[in-house]
């Protein structure tokens, strides 16, 4: 499936291991959360970059001690209407300061990409349609945002506040 990373189509360079799959000699490996919990000490000693695939009903706090060791966290949207991963992403990117790749998978559709990016996702596993239908254009549909999130956009609330401060201090 195509992968979007930093608003471009790229190859996925990660191997995503099934729970019963042996560890290959590969530079980037992801495992399920269950496997991570069972085998984290052994996995952490590998030379590979590591990633965890987190279900959307597990608190990101569970990964807090490991964030420095992880290069990838995959969050899931089992149905695009199930929005729990938006909160997980914000917590990981914002409060917990995760600096690696934060990837969305599952039912990831064009019209949710911008919401996801704002919540801190920087990678998106999408369907084949994404290329033909030019889903990258979705990232450019808005450049005005009202509320702060985990992207670097200056929200309108903030822009106005700065303006208000100038107005009120000058007076």
């Amino acid at each position, binding site marked *: 499936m195509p992968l979007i990373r930093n608003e471009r189509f790229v190859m996925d360079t990660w191997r995503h291991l099934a729970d019963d799959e042996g560890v290959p000699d590969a530079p980037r490996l992801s495992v399920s959360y269950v496997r991570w919990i069972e085998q984290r000490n052994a996995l952490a000693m590998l030379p590979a970059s590591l990633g965890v695939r987190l279900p959307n009903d597990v*608190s990101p706090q569970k990964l807090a001690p490991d964030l420095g060791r992880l290069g990838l966290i995959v969050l899931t949207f089992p149905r695009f209407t199930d929005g*729990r991963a*938006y909160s997980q992403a914000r917590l990981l990117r914002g409060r917990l300061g995760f600096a690696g790749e934060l990837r969305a998978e599952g039912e990831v559709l064009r019209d949710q990409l911008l919401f996801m990016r704002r919540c801190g996702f920087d990678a998106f596993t999408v369907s084949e349609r994404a290329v033909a239908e030019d889903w990258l254009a979705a990232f450019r549909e808005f450049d005005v945002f*009202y509320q702060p999130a985990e992207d670097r956009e200056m929200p309108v609330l903030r822009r106005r*506040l700065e303006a208000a*401060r100038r107005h009120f201090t000058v007076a």
Partner: protein
Amino acid sequence: MYRYDSFDTRFIAERVAQYRDQVRRRLAGQLTEEEFRPLRLMNGLYLQLHAYMLRIAIPYGTLSSRQLRQLGHIARTWDRGFGHFTTRQNIQFHWIKLEETPDILAALAEVEMHAIQTSGNSFRNTTTDPFAGAAIDEIEDPRPYCEIIRQWSTLHPEFSFLPRKFKIAVSGAANDRAAVRVHDIGLYLRRNAAGEVGFEVLVGGGLGRTPILAETIRDFIPKRDLLSYIEAILRIYNQYGRRDNLYKSRIKILVQSLGIARMRDEVEAEWTAMDHAALALPDEAIAEMAQFFPPPDPAPAPADDDGFGAALETEPGFARWVEQNTAPHKVRGHAIVTISLKEPGLTPGDCTAEQMDLVADLADRYGQGEIRVTHEQNLVLPQIRRVDLPSVWRALGAARLATANVALASNIIACPGLDYCGLANARSIPVAQRLAVALAPREREIGDLQIKISGCINACGHHHVGHIGLLGVDKNGEEFYQITLGGSADANAALGAIVGPAVKSEDVVHSVDTIVDVYLKLRTGGERFPETYRRVGNKPFKDALYAAH
């Protein structure tokens, strides 16, 4: 009123462009209905029995005359010449074509309006007191906070796919005219012991299949922390609200299952861990927003003059209308006027394009160009000089907008029901029409009586909080109505109790007449219906209704 700046204008243009492309992709087959449906719902577009229905946002029920005229223009150009005002202070059009909706949204954007998030599983219209800024019992004007919440909640990236819809109401007065306690989050402006104004925060209210009154989660939060606290509540709901069962997915269910104490613990823990700086509302931010909602000029208007006095004497309808449809304004010599959209026999809450133009003209001529929408499906002119009331009344009367029935029995609240709505089990409009016609002759004798009718359990007619509530149900293909009694939407909020077995459509008028007869016989000392009901209980009503025929 709030005025868009360049940010708002740009945002709304981007939204219209986005939606236009979504419609193009749907009509071209690039989006399935399953993919498109949440997108059109996020722009207020439903597919109903006869056509699409567009629900347009009227933020906290406030309209300028220019906006109201544009709604009339939309009614004429793209609908059948009328619109329907709703119990959440919005307006709906019932005869819309999908292919024309991008143009309609563009027409709305011209007057700083939109249909964003009037449906879908995200924040809906934040509603408030239709008398905000004008009422004598007001602690502080809630509208700046409504506008702050509206903007913060618009296309919120984290909370656009909640388990279910989310409704917030704010009240700034001693009397709750916003039905705060039946909202997912309710906010009361309060003064604490130190004299500081802040908010009491309630959570978990709602109607529908499981009606519940909201409980207080925080007695007092300073204004500065309002948004961050709301965000904390939403983050808990987004993560833990049920998603397995459509009928158990509102926040009220989460609050019931955790209990308010544990809900509070979760929210307070989240709030404590949050970075408050990002969402803090310092005084300058609030002052900047408050500039758009200046208090009325405190200079009193001239005292009632000869014209006013003469009208009272010689035109009996005028005196009744003043008594019933006007409320005291905080500035002497002014009044708050409610425009009744409830002429008995007509559809409650409906308004023609011509009537919209007339109300806009009256607002311009007599009332600073501002109109409000109430959650009882009426309109309000929030500030009219008393000496102008005779002229206003005559103009309204000529347009069939002067029925003197505010708070009376024929001021029925009714959802569109099975005549329009795909969710309904039974019709509500014809029932409302028959009841209003039947009760109008004695409604002044009855006094305050709130009758609310819903065509299905979704309760858009707010029947649970009617003094008399009617819920349409389908029994073997026939329309029946379940009657509830004793509900109330004010600060003493209460949910109505079912009086007995549902009655057939043709028996509704007789049943309500019987209930009213019992009330009139048993009430004492100026009791309104809810007080009498609380005192005497269900039995006298039940006995009278179901006595052997």
